[in-house]
């Protein structure tokens, strides 16, 4: 520590004499930084890196089992891509070891359904949450009596654990529950194919819109009021102000919020697992990819590993598209927001 201290001796903000050299300082700070960052990286390597690597290795292994001829326990050995083919191409093995297409009821045949359900949830919930989030953020950005109450109220759904949220909406959506009583309907919210999907979408929207609204509000607060004053001088309507000023200016914050929510929505588990048990319709109307992985764990680690790796890759591709194609710069946007907020 003491050598490092000597090297970074010059105060950071003060313009340095050229002989000290920014390069030398940087090299010194790099050394300190390595020591400071190392524990975090090592721990993350243990809790994330190790499981991911071993999941990938497992996904290429056959399930171990008893050899029918000898009665001895044998390791599975290399399986090639058969675990992936099981999910993506719905290939199963019959009792004599031939490759057949998976029978209905086998978890393998649910893959594309689960992928569809997961993306359906992600797109619909994030669209709803973005729309409501922008609306809530605009209201909270205005000055009115009771604004404190709104800002407090909006934190309540966020603070409730998702497991409790799921149970709460399970009760609200009970057949004789308050939702049907208020709507004067007899909808089977937790077992009908589309009703159960919308039950999850409604509960998720309730729980997560506040988070979106807060992120968007942070983006709204850095728009200076005089931009709107100028627009009004030029005769812009409220809608024009929103479309031409607010939306373009909060676009970076909005994109970051949408990215976070999409990635979060694609791994959705708690809400459907507790609210509908992944069921509904013919039995898997709300089975998401995460639910399918958990269902598979007890039927074979290696297939489950392949599926969780596929899930991970899907989420990674979506994130990549956001960052590369749509140019969402998470780090820079948040730094800009902080600078704006610090003014």
């Amino acid at each position, binding site marked *: 520590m003491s050598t490092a201290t000597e090297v970074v001796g010059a105060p950071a903000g003060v313009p340095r004499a050229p002989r000290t050299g920014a390069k030398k300082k940087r090299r010194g*700070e790099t050394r300190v930084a390595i020591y400071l960052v190392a524990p975090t990286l090592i721990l993350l390597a243990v*809790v994330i890196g190790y499981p991911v690597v*071993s999941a990938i290795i497992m996904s290429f292994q056959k399930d171990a089992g008893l050899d029918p001829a000898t009665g001895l326990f044998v390791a599975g050995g290399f399986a090639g891509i058969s675990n992936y083919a099981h999910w993506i191409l719905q290939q199963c093995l019959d009792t004599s070891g031939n490759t057949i297409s998976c029978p209905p009821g086998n978890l393998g045949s649910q893959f594309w359904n689960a992928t569809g359900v997961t993306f359906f949830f992600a797109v619909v919930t994030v669209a709803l949450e973005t729309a409501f989030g922008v609306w809530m953020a605009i209201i909270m950005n205005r000055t009115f009596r009771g604004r404190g109450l709104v800002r407090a109220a909006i*934190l*309540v759904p966020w603070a409730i654990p998702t497991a409790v949220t799921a*149970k709460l909406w399970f009760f609200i959506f009970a057949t004789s529950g308050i939702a049907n*009583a208020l709507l004067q309907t007899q909808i089977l919210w937790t077992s009908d194919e589309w009703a159960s999907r919308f039950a999850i979408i409604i509960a998720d929207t309730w729980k997560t819109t506040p988070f979106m609204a807060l*992120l968007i509000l942070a983006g709204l607060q850095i728009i200076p009021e005089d931009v709107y004053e100028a627009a009004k001088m030029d005769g812009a309507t409220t809608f024009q102000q929103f479309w031409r000023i607010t939306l373009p200016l909060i676009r970076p914050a909005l994109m970051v919020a949408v990215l*976070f929510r999409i990635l979060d929505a694609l791994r959705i588990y708690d809400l459907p697992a507790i609210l509908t048990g992944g069921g509904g319709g013919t039995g898997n109307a709300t089975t998401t990819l995460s639910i399918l992985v958990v269902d598979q764990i007890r039927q074979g680690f290696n297939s489950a590993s392949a599926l969780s790796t596929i899930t991970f890759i899907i989420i990674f591709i979506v994130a990549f598209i956001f960052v590369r194609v749509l140019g969402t710069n998470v780090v820079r946007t948040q730094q800009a927001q902080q600078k704006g907020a610090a003014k």
Partner: protein
Amino acid sequence: MSAIAATATRTVARDRAVAAVDTRAIAMKRRGRGRGIRTGISAAVIVLWCLAPFYWMIVTAFRDVGYTYDTAFWPTHVTFDNFTTAFSTQLGNHLGKALLNSLFIGVCVTAIALIIGIFAAYALARLDFRFKGILLGVILGASMFPGVALITPLFQLFTNIGWMGSYQALILPSISFVLPLTVYTLTSFFREMPWDLEEAARIDGCTQAQAFRKIILPLAAPAVFTTAILAFISSWNEYLISSQLSSDATQPVTVAIASFAGSQPHQEPYTTVMAAGTIVTIPLVILVLIFQRRIVAGLTAGGVKG
């Protein structure tokens, strides 16, 4: 020292608020009353939408189990039986134990994440080094990592080494999402701190380590505390990993609530679950409302869902 900084922050905040109110007051007057009423109605709708389900949970928690489906909006058939049932170990509800489990796991995860993460956050906020941007990206990416990608190998590993259902089997995986959140939130907070004071201390003869311990750490206490709350909440709310890796003895509240038994057999124990939900939620809601401003700052800084 921290009092001065706190006052300074408050003054800045107040100035900003006053300036905002001034410009907006003029704008409001010009736009007239129509917009004020519309804002009021919108605000009322938001408050109602956010609080109504929560209110319904509390009302039901105090309602007699025979009147589960009573649709009166105010409390009727008030009873405390649901809370007794929720804690009844005879019915197989280990809510008391589950609360302690959640508390223990949450405190361990938060402590580990803070102790480890505070150094990384200091480096990321304060030092200039290569690969800093990439490192921030990696840590942010780690917090978005899907839990299912970890669960299968961990399930097998913990089965093999006999950790299944142990506390460490629940604490370690939680670090995978709490540590990145901690580092990222702390980094954002640390960037805003008055680092001139550190330099002043250095000029007065402190080493960098001393300046950090004696000046920065006390100043950073509120930021660290806020981050601790966010970390604790995200650990407290975890369900996926715990539901697979915990046993009856170690299960946290989220898992306990999802598998609850009521006082009436063959009947969905709605009122009991609502009572348990109320117990689990009320401390969080109180905590969040007390530290509302800081939590909102932390949430938007870290940008990571709890």
